[in-house]
């Protein structure tokens, strides 16, 4: 009995597309890719990560999950904008097929409609998310905590934000979470990130997923639901993850 299950596990596979790695490995954002891959491996999946750089073709055949990193500084944002516009139709197609997409910081901004730079220049987004960004004067930097609803449960999410862009949501757009401490999308409306279908855009570095294992599993579950409907996610020991999570809450004086 056990043997058959093992053989089945062997066939399980998840394919990840990792957009713009290295370009942005300044904020530890590659930790998100590491977290997804490791948590899938610990559950017996074999994992394939395809790194996609500026100018590379986006290979969306059998992609199960997409991770888009930020980019830093306005020069890189412009480069990414130009590249994303060429990948626009593929990314829209994946989003409509409910493939989970995680986009951080500049990646989040550029899945939206546009970004206005301090000089008033308009950097075009791909318009997948109903959000737009205006670059402010103040740098919003520091640890941050949110409350977000994941699969029916309210969970805390912790991270580190560092941005001057102020992002605003359209009337219909759903925020990812409510800011408990920190700035969030714009430091004004108490909202952070955006959720559209299975696309999650957020400003949270830190990196986001290792310290919020429930969010990592939420994304994995979406990917698995598409490919292996009805399969349940094996529970993992989250002792280290929760300890790091609680340390952040404690730093923000949120721990009860």
């Amino acid at each position, binding site marked *: 009995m056990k043997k058959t299950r093992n053989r089945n596990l062997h066939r399980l596979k998840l394919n990840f597309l990792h957009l713009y790695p*290295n*370009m942005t*490995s*300044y*904020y*530890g*954002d*590659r*930790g998100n890719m*590491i*977290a997804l891959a*490791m948590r899938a491996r610990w559950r017996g999946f074999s994992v394939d990560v395809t790194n996609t*750089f*500026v*100018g590379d073709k986006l290979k969306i055949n059998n992609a199960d999950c997409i991770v888009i990193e930020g980019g*830093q*500084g*306005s*020069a*890189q944002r412009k*480069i*990414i904008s130009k*590249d994303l516009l060429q990948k626009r139709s593929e990314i829209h197609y994946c989003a409509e097929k409910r493939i989970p997409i995680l986009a951080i910081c500049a990646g989040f901004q550029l899945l939206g409609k546009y970004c206005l730079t301090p000089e008033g220049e308009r950097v075009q987004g791909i318009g997948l998310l109903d959000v737009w960004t205006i670059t402010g004067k103040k*740098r919003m*930097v*520091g*640890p941050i905590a949110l409350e977000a609803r994941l699969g029916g449960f309210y969970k805390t999410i912790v991270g*580190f934000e*560092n941005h001057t862009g102020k992002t605003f949501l359209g009337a219909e757009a759903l925020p990812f979470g409510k800011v408990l401490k920190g700035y969030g999308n714009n430091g004004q409306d108490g909202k952070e990130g955006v959720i559209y279908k299975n696309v999650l855009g957020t400003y949270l*570095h*830190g*990196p986001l997923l*290792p*310290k919020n294992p429930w969010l990592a599993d939420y994304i994995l579950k979406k990917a698995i639901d598409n490919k292996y409907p009805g399969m349940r996610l094996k529970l993992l020991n989250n002792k*280290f*993850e929760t*300890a*790091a999570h*609680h*340390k952040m809450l404690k730093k923000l004086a949120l721990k009860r």
Partner: protein
Amino acid sequence: MGDRLKVLPGLCLGKMYISLSKFTHFGGSTLPGRLALGLSPRVLSMLASQLKEGCILITGTNGKTTTAHLLAGILSRAGKKIIHNGSGANLISGVTTAFVAESSHLGKINADLGVIEVDEASMPAVASRLNVKAALVTNLFPDQLDRFGELEHTLELISRGLDGVKKEGFLLLNADDPLIASIKKETRTIYYGLENFKKSIKVKEQAGSKICYHCGKKYDYLHVHFAHLGLYQCPGCGARRPLPHYSIVSCHKKNEKNTVANIKTPTGHFPVSFEIPGFYNLYNVLAAISCALLLGVREDIIKASLREFTADFGRRRTISIGGKKVELFLIKNPVGANEALRALFEGGTWGGAAHGMPLLLAVNDKYADGIDVSWLWDVDFEALSCPDKKIPKIFCSGTRGEEISLRLKYAGIDIKKIKHEEDLVKAFQDSLSCTPAGGKLQVLLTYTALQEMRKIVGKLVSAGD
């Protein structure tokens, strides 16, 4: 003289504080300067203006302390009287302290030349107050972005500081760093860099950017030395490594400690030998030598000075405690940490330690460390998970010990080997008792953790005497 009178109050206050701190053993590498500047804002520019030959500024993310020490050593040997902020305090307050400490009570400076290490973000403020003869920029890596903002911004700050270099002076830039080499100024610019060694050093994919900052294309590298330093060319915009005027064309280990490097200058070749371990130190040695040559120091003086130099300061230090050795490494950003990890596994350095020696990692998130510890995820801790490097236990400590424990778990290290102990004193005792007699405990720490550790070790060493 009138100028000097005006700044006397601040100077006196600073000097008083320095002599006071000598009695109380209360560290004073920045406070005297801050007090002096607070009372007499012009004290730094007044003192610096007395230097006959001006100042050499050394900035960049990694290697500025080592390079400054090397250069100060060479220049002293060449008979110059040097002012050098050797304590590593490199903000404007630290620089001022160094000058105040060297001046007489009447504000007179008896020195020829300043060798001043400057924090990247402090470049504009420091450069505008000093009489800058030359500036040396080592490299630019992501480091404490929460403090500096973004890399672009840091480059801009450095570049603004370089505007303060005198017309007849020079800039010495690292040709192998695409970001640094992209700095263009009207001042005479000299480049240094490492050539393509025959004995290539295998480099794993590292966290630094290998993407052209200007157009986003991946650089074509003929050779990567480490991180984004190497022989590069951008296929997109055509940016390429400038040909260095000073370079190391070959290098080999004479014995376990001694390295011999062949330096190429515009006028010829000469070999130097030194006992400074670590690949990244080749850049520091080369930078210091190039700068000394440009200042007219003779080759034989440089050689002699380097032979005497041993790197027992700054980011790497070995101490003996009760028959065991403890080696401390400062880690503060992905590139430095990757280099430290590489040094652990370098032939001989780890010695038998790869088999059976524990490791202690301490990460703090105080302001001086950088309050954001995200960068830990850009470090290749995966290197520690290699099964052939038998590390029995890894102790994790510091105010963010949980984060480093978590990072190790995701690097594929067996969680049974990871021991989290928030209290650094306890973590150190545990890891030391886990170290077999005659063995070496390797400790990697962030800046404020290193300061704590020095105190802990200091007590142990003096108690042992």
